């Protein structure tokens, strides 16, 4: 490199020793070189994530007065969030809906991933693409199509009615927490199928043969070999669904009805018509903390479980 050469032949001086020392440090330290390589990403992260998050945290200690924000630091918002039962109840309901949804999605996605991983031998990619096909349309459209299916005059109700099974349309289908769980479970299926498929695909087939040779039937083989080895995929899938759905507000708005309002709906109106941004920030942070704690506990528990199985 001509660069190195020119530095080497340059006469000694105060500038030179400073620069070459920096350069030597840079070349010696792997971490420094790593960070330099990462720096564009780090800058983006700092601007797009750390900065908004800092603003959110700061705002949660402020208070709204009319159109203005009073920037005296206070815990009033947190106090209010702890006192008013509505926030706690909606947070618990959101966690409950997302938890149910994560469990159901994993249960329904597992057989699909299993089938592709073990029983499809040609054109696996085509199968995977076909499974993710619904995701090529907009999320909003998928929610609306569930509204059409579950609705008062929707596919299910008119089907049951024409079969003579019901007289009046079933009203609990739409505008209820059930409707949210169904819609979310379908909307997030791909996020469960893919990680589970990957972890199933990685399983060494000779282990399965060994289990069979040693006398395990199909069920015992699945429970003792396949399931434990695919657990990392299952855990990843359930977290991938649980974390974002807790904060969903479009689905409850469209199919939830009065009993299906979730915490994110309340956060959204704080920034909209209620016009209390600090309260919205407080609720967002509380939600983040709770979801974080639950996820960490879940990962810790599942790690313990895997250790015990292994």
């Amino acid at each position: 490199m001509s660069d190195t050469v020119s530095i080497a032949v340059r006469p000694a001086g105060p500038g030179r020793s400073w620069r070459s020392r920096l350069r030597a440090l840079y070349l010696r330290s792997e971490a420094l070189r790593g960070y330099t390589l990462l720096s564009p990403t780090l800058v983006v992260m700092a601007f797009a994530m750390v900065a908004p998050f800092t603003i959110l945290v700061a705002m949660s200690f402020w208070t709204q007065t009319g159109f203005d924000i009073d920037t005296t630091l206070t815990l009033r918002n947190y106090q209010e969030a702890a006192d008013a039962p509505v926030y706690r109840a909606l947070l618990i309901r959101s966690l409950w809906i997302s938890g149910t949804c994560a469990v159901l999605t994993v249960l329904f996605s597992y057989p699909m991933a299993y089938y592709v991983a073990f029983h499809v031998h040609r054109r696996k990619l085509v199968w995977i693409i076909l499974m993710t096909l619904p995701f090529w349309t907009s999320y909003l459209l998928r929610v609306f199509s569930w509204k059409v299916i579950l609705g008062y005059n929707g596919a299910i109700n008119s089907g049951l009615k024409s079969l003579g099974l019901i007289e009046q349309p079933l009203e609990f289908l739409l505008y209820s927490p059930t409707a949210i769980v169904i819609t979310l479970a379908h909307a997030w299926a791909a996020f469960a199928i893919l990680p589970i498929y990957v972890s199933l695909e990685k399983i060494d087939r000779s282990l399965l043969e060994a289990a069979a040779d040693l006398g395990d039937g199909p069920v015992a083989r699945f429970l003792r070999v396949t399931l434990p080895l695919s657990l990392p995929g299952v855990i990843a899938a359930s977290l991938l669904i649980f974390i974002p759905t807790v904060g969903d507000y479009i689905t409850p708005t469209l199919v939830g009805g009065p009993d299906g309002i979730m915490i994110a709906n309340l956060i959204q109106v704080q920034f909209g018509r209620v016009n209390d941004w600090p309260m919205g920030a407080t609720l967002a942070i509380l939600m983040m903390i709770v979801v974080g704690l639950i996820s960490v506990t879940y990962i810790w528990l599942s790690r313990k479980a895997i250790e015990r199985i292994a």
Partner: protein
Amino acid sequence: MDTRDLIARIKNRDISRRDLLQGMSAAGLAVVMTPAMSRIAKAAAADQATYFTWGGYDVPEFVPTYVTKHGEPPNFATFGGSEEALTKMLAGYVVDVAHPCNQAIPRWIATGLFQPLDTSRLSNWPDIMPELINLEGNVVDGKPYMAPTDWGRTSITYRTDLVDLQGQEESWGMLWDERYKGRLGMLASGGDSWWCGAIYAGVDFKDIASEEGFKKVAAIMRKQRPLIRTYTDDTTSLEQALASGELVAAMTWDSSAVVLKGEGVPVTFANPKEGALTWVCGAMMHKDAPKPDKAYDIIDALLSPEAGKWLIGENGYGHSNTKSFELFSDDELTALGLSSNPADILSAGKFQIPQTQEFETAMNKEFEQIKAGF
């Protein structure tokens, strides 16, 4: 590769795999590029001013003279409630013209986001009903901020075949009727619902912000909550639910009833004995409107009798221009629930009174909690 050439070669089965792949990738690229191309083609809309309005008003028929003058409609942006619109603009969203209602005027002016109107630039101004211009807080130092465009009522649209009035007069009590539990719909925005609750609770609008009035309305809204199937700002979903029979009655504006009647659904827009909620909405101009000349064109178009024709004929709303009413016969107006003397309807209804921002925040907070079941 020429397309025609390619097709001919496919027909003659004289095509290599490489050629086919090449052709396919060209087609793929074309598909990917299409949105980008149409965006370039649409770039002309950037020359137009932006009108920030309620959902449903975002149609060229509401700004007819603007479309004839500039060849295309302005850019529309919509909102579901005026509080939501205001917070969006406070957060830095700049539009040319926005669409608040009478109750919001003083608070909107207080934000300093709007400029008074130069009425000499509006050709239709002399025909505007003066009582609509002199709304509380609208005229500051002799200059109006809001050019009134439309007015109407918030009341109940109900299915005449499914609701049994039992010989009683129409009343707000229809939306509190236990017999129709789970088949009633409400507007989600407190700007309508809370005030209608106040009418039903018998709270005078002068006392709506008093502690006693606030508690009374909150109690009656809480009582109603278990009866409601859905709270929404989307009038279309209320209309669809009324048409299918999922809902038997819902709080709506005039236009929902007119639209449903037009589709042959047996509905009527109630004239509750306690009085309907009456409102006047209009156009305000942003202080930093990027296209002030075109903004005046939008406002003038909104005030034109042609806009009034659409507003009255298709929606059953009132217009601010007296000449608009001359386009309809007395019978037509009566069928729409209007009158050739609009002042009659305006004076019969209950007018919202502007409130402080503190009241708006407290009220919306309380109403959100009630809707969530607390």
